[in-house]
């Protein structure tokens, strides 16, 4: 039940894009066509679902205050949490490389469709944001971290596909010239975020 709650919350209520604006750069740049949006979204789901649990384990067993106790009781008051940024980003960059190699070897069709997006994901704010929020939420078990990573990824995928669909349609309408492109995209995203606020406060 608790897991369901985390899953639904991370998709609808704490949506990476509509509530925290994470991953906006690629969100705006790659949302011109639905097809590419689905590709990037799928890659984000994939990488988030892997990196959040891995970073959770690293945080829990290496970085938290007193986390090194399992190694030796005398390490009980070692606090490495100031290293978390550099650890997380290194893990993410390494994971993205690994995932890229695996996908290339075992699922060439998927690799061809993700293409350039996979390496770019290392610098997508949504990925690092997922890990940092995971650290703040103080999950107790790795399953919660997996569900949270998966849910945030799906929320991101949903948001970018919706926006891409709207942008495909909007190219047929008469937008004021200075508003074209970036300006109208911002306003659409804002309106979508307002719509998503309807989910606020839902508890399962």
């Amino acid at each position, binding site marked *: 039940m608790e897991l369901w709650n985390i899953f639904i919350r991370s998709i609808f209520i704490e949506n990476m894009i509509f509530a925290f604006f994470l991953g906006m750069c690629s969100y705006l*740049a790659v949302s011109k066509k639905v097809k590419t949006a689905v590709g990037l979204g799928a890659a984000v789901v994939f990488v988030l679902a892997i990196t959040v649990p891995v970073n959770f384990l690293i945080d829990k067993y290496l970085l938290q205050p007193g986390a090194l106790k399992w190694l030796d009781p005398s390490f009980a008051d070692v606090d490495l949490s100031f290293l978390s940024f550099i650890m997380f980003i290194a893990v993410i960059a390494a994971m993205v490389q690994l995932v890229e190699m695996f996908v290339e070897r075992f699922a060439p069709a998927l690799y061809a469709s993700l293409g350039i997006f996979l390496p770019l994901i290392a610098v997508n704010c949504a990925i690092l944001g997922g890990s940092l929020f995971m650290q703040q939420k103080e999950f107790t078990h790795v399953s919660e971290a997996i569900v949270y990573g998966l849910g945030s990824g799906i929320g991101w995928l949903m948001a970018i596909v919706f926006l891409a669909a709207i942008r495909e349609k909007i190219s047929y309408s008469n937008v004021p010239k200075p508003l074209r492109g970036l300006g109208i995209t911002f306003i659409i995203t804002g309106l979508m975020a307002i719509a998503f606020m309807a989910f606020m406060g839902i508890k399962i």
Partner: protein
Amino acid sequence: MAKKKKWKDLLVDPLNENNPITVQILGICSALAITVKLMPAIVMGISVMVVVAFSNFIVSLIRNYIPNRIRIIVQLLIVATLVILVDQLLKAFAYDVSKQLSVFVGLIITNCIVMGRLEAFALANKPIDSFLDGIGNGAGYSFVLIIVAFFRELLGSGTLLDKKIIPQSFYDAGYVNNAMMLLPAMALITLGIYIWVQRSLYPQLTEKE
């Protein structure tokens, strides 16, 4: 003389005509969530300026020694180190603000402004030029942040830097703060309107179809 002018361009261009947020579309990720109040926006702007300037400088110093294939990881590590420094400094000297900024300090690492400027400028230019480019882009970023935060704080809570601006007599007469402005969604719309105004004033920035 020519050199002086170039340095001035490096500093001034990103403020408006080549603004990282509204024209280059970089660094929107963390730009919006921290603009509810003016104070965090200013602190965030300064932090980003420092990180961009110094990472540009360092990467530019070692640009001829970084192997091309692993340059992204090298850059990320340099940026991450600088961000940790900024984070620790903020925790030491401005604890309240650093609590408000929460994860967004950490997210400077993946702020596209930093990577964007490193890739586009620092890898091909001299250290001093890169440093100035970093300051300029950081300033352009702060500029947009401060404008958005100014309107959101003024209309949303009737204060600026936590000082009351809207006089009490207005409230007595029935004026109500627009709580909408505090919602994340309004940051996007405010920025959209800012871009609209900017592009109406400078038609050359309008996107070509």
